[in-house]
């Protein structure tokens, strides 16, 4: 069986800067995969390539056995990739439920069905009580959940989460972790970018560590955190000695 998502030898150059070099990763159906790495490792660049913000300089991206390298973001959403944004991008002049309806309209043009779907997703994400509030009035952790709700309303196969757990209180982060687990239980595959290791490691099935634009290590979370190369990337070579 082919993987749900595959990147084959993906490069991204910005002028002289190489943000991703020869990145080949794959994400299997039903997995929760963490994409981690120190700042500037190229996580967000790779994430944006998968989401379809821009085509890679070189290499191909495959979803469900189809080449989506040149497919624009809008069409990728239709094909089943949904994403959240690191800096939240709510539709501020719309209510919470209207935000989610925009997502639901990808699968239906019948307004009642879209509204019903949106409300279900809000219940799933624990935001139903805030349905009629303006998105601008939400607190930061709620806005993160709204991002997830909006993405889920598009009924994705693959959900891309960009640092949804960063900057939350421990309790909020824990709620977030449980939400991601429940999302996976509904059959959605999750690829998440995080740099807070202690939150993601217990959650993900597999971790891919990027450093300096390349895949450094890939494997079970428990193995990855003990890998000397990973420790060196995060803390510097000195700390890796004898690990």
């Amino acid at each position, binding site marked *: 069986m082919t993987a749900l998502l595959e990147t084959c030898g993906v490069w991204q150059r910005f002028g002289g800067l190489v943000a991703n070099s020869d990145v080949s990763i794959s994400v299997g159906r039903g997995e929760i995969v963490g994409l981690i790495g120190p700042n500037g490792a190229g996580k967000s660049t790779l994430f944006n390539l998968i989401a379809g913000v821009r085509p890679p300089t070189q290499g191909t991206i495959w979803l469900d056995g189809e080449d989506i390298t040149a497919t624009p973001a809008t069409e990728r959403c239709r094909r089943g990739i949904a*994403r959240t944004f690191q800096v939240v991008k709510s539709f501020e002049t719309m209510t919470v439920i*209207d935000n989610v309806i925009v997502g639901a309209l*990808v699968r239906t043009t019948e307004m009642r069905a879209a509204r019903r779907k949106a409300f279900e997703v809000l219940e799933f994400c624990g935001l139903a009580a805030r349905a009629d509030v303006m998105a601008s009035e939400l607190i930061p952790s709620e806005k993160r959940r709204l991002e997830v709700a909006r993405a889920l309303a*598009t009924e994705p196969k693959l959900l891309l989460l960009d640092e949804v757990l960063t900057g939350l209180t421990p309790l909020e982060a824990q709620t977030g972790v449980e939400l991601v687990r429940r999302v996976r239980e509904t059959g959605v595959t999750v690829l998440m970018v995080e740099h807070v290791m202690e939150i993601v490691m217990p959650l993900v099935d597999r971790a891919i560590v990027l450093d300096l634009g390349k895949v450094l290590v890939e494997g079970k979370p428990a193995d990855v955190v003990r890998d000397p190369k990973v420790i060196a990337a995060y803390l510097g070579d000195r700390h890796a000695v004898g690990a």
Partner: protein
Amino acid sequence: MHDVTHAKQRRRDLILAAVFVALAACVPLFVKDVYVQNIMVLTLMYAGLSQSWNILGGYCGQISLGHALYFGLGAYVTAILLTKFDVLPWFGMLTGGIISALIALALGYPTFRLGGHYFAIATIVIAEIAYLLFLNWDWAGAALGIDIMVREDSWAKFQFTRSKLPYFYFALFFAAVAWLVTWWLENSKWGYWWRAVKDNPDAAESLGVVVFKSKMGAGAISAFLTAIGGAFYAMFVSYIDPDAVMSFQFSLLIALPAVLGGIGTLWGPVLGAAVLIPVTELTRSFIGGSGRGVDLIVYGSLIVIVSLTRPDGLLGLFSRKRKKEAVQ
């Protein structure tokens, strides 16, 4: 349960609009003064025009300051077809609307790639070019304009010599249709797409919204309706020239009621026109005669006061109250 309250709110809007239309239709039974009737016609016309503008400017967030172009096109197409080809103004109106929508699509193709202020500037420039073209286009009457001879009272030719009432009822119909189109679109895929595009195009794209297509759709519908208003205006005043239908002041007058009343809202343009147009007309006729522009000072001050105290528009007065009720 949630969708029931939403449906109720929408039905309430519809009933409210029907009541307004019914009340407005009765007003001429009591108000016989031609001057006042004239103001009412203009108020309704601008309510409809601003409602049309609001689809593109308010809902979709693409601020156009060149709607005089579509207004003028509607007026010119109707007047030219009628005077040169004897085509009934109803067909002229429709033709003007379709031509305007097509031109909006052709112009939108390059300009909808522009962001924010650059789009607004482009619309001003394009409308100004069209104005200059018509000013120098001999076949279309150039600066002298087109005189529509009014010979008889006729609904077919949409000409009335003695009474302003037919114009009043058409203006009411126009405003009601523009409102109804907005009401319907607001709760459609388009309405949601437009608001998403306005608030955050990147996020909209990630949710499957085809941003460019949304803007094109809004532009075409907005231009079509605006041209219908322009066609009406040509028949109402029965004389047009570039200054009378295509000058920059129309772009402002079309946009202002929506901005003043509440941009991107269903009732904003209606409320804005109901306040702004009578004030414009009254200040002009009572203190405009001084020749010192006092009317414009009053008018300008009003806009400044509203934008300082109610940046969301006059409609904010009502929604704030409603929100308080909801909290209690």
